[in-house]
């Protein structure tokens, strides 16, 4: 049984469609990312899965139960952890007080000291929340998400607003939770976050999923064209090369190909035979960001075409 199962989920607010025909599954122990721009419907999806919002149509199961079913909602909430997109912590409590209070809500919480240690807030344990930096408050927020010892964590843009070191620390925490077997569903608009954390990713754009897969293969990333670049040897032009190449703005030769093994073989054979150095030789596969931008551009164009084709 998957930890999360979503089939043909749609949600409207009046006439505004927030999510359209979304389907995906999250397996137990997996880190699954919903990637998309602001307003794509990521938070709406997550809030439906948490049981915070009701869906308009479709089938949804979180840990085997319908999150909208009031009779099992308390049970479900004792087994999930939530980190909201925006910080929400009472300012006057100390770190320890707010964690102790929330630990009391759960049947099987983590020890408060363990969470303080995990979040790197040991030195701030008795400080009031309002005295913490933004990054420290964010870590405490994550601490509140894990205090109930959840089987499934929802992290809604957990590193937004954090400095680079704060982001890395949060990533390490998420990796540690994942290694312990916690299933993680996170939303983000950071590509590097997806690459660092996610086992699988779905791109949500225009209220629907436009692609899904592993970060390494999404959008045909693993089988698509690569770009081979190097500095042209002295006295050699792009036309002299054994394979078709262009000259980039910085003067480097650039070859785009889907047959990188054959092209590299021909190129390096030619260089060795003629004694040509291929300085700065690199093979670049298309980045996740390129794939994401391509997918969202395609979807925008399709949506515009659909709109203009309306009677």
């Amino acid at each position, binding site marked *: 049984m998957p930890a999360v199962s979503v089939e043909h989920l749609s949600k409207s607010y009046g006439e505004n469609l927030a999510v359209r025909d979304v389907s995906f599954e999250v397996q137990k122990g997996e880190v699954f990312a919903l990637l998309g721009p602001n307003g794509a419907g990521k938070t709406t999806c997550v809030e439906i899965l948490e049981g915070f919002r009701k869906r308009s149509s479709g089938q949804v199961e979180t840990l085997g139960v319908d999150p909208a079913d009031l009779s099992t909602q308390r049970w479900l909430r004792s*087994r999930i952890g939530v980190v909201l997109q925006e910080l929400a912590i009472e300012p006057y409590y100390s770190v320890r007080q707010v964690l102790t209070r929330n630990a009391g809500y759960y049947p099987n919480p983590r020890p408060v000291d363990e969470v303080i240690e995990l979040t790197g807030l040991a030195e701030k344990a008795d400080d009031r929340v309002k005295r913490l930096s933004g990054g420290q408050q964010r870590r405490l927020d994550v601490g509140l998400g894990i205090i109930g010892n959840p089987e499934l964590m929802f992290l809604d843009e957990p590193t937004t607003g954090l400095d680079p070191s704060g982001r890395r620390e949060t990533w390490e925490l998420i990796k540690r939770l994942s290694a312990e077997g916690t299933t993680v569903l996170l939303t983000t608009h950071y590509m590097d976050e997806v690459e660092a954390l996610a086992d699988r990713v779905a791109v949500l754009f225009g209220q629907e999923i436009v692609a899904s897969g592993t970060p390494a293969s999404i959008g045909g990333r693993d089988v698509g064209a690569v770009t081979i670049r190097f500095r042209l040897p002295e006295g050699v032009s792009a036309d002299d090369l054994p394979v078709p190449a262009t000259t980039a703005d910085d003067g480097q030769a650039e070859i785009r190909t889907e047959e990188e093994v054959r092209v590299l073989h021909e190129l390096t054979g030619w260089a060795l035979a003629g004694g040509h150095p291929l300085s700065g030789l690199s093979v670049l596969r298309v980045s996740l960001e390129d794939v994401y931008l391509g997918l969202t551009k395609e979807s925008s164009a399709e949506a515009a075409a659909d709109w203009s084709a309306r009677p």
Partner: protein
Amino acid sequence: MTTAAADTPIKGSFRGLSDLGLVARQVGYEQLSFWLNPIGAALTIGFSVVFIIIFLSTSRHSTVNFLAHINLGQYYLPAFASYGVMAACFNIMSINLVNRREMGLLKRLRLSPVPEWVVLAAIFVNAMIIAAIQIVLVLLVGWLGYGVTGPHEAGLFVLVVLVGMFSFTAVGVGVSTLVPNADSAAPILSLVFFILIALSGLYFPVKAGSGLATFTDIFPIRHLILASVDTFNNVPGTSPWNDILVMLVWGAAGVWVSLRRWDWSPKRG
């Protein structure tokens, strides 16, 4: 991770006595939060105490002719006791509720296993405790410092206070759902509140049948003040039951609005 034994979903959201313990625990944290902001707490509690001292000091020899000639101090003491109820259960509670909603604190609580009713019950009980502290302090000042006596109908006085707590909390929760954002919560709610308590007779008794009384009779504030004064002094020819009824109607209206408009999410209006 949760244990395998907990794999079967447990239906139902009421856990009996343990939930009552959860209410008590949550009230403890509500109180802790209140006292951890000592300036806010001092202003809340101190306002009614400072004002009752000022009003009792300047009214020792005056009487209210249209209320069986009772001493003005006998009027102010229960009136300011009722102010404690109104301030704690309506003004402070509703502003606090809007702020918490807009900060996302209510949403976070909603996503925890704590039942909604536990959260709301704790907020209500916390408001009752703050109101009770103000009432006790005001009464102590009046009894010990100024020789005011009462309540002469203690049971009815307590009933009036309890109905007032229910009514003003319900109205406060209802009104909080109408306030669109945290920035406007304190100005809107405090302005309306302080104008209405002034017009309703907190600072000066308002004669029944006057235009001002007719206007303020619409709202529950004057009814709580009058019912408190009546039961505190056992004023001849008066009865608190009509006032209690009006407060209950307002309380029911507050519950109705709350049920229809309550939202755990920030409105960000």
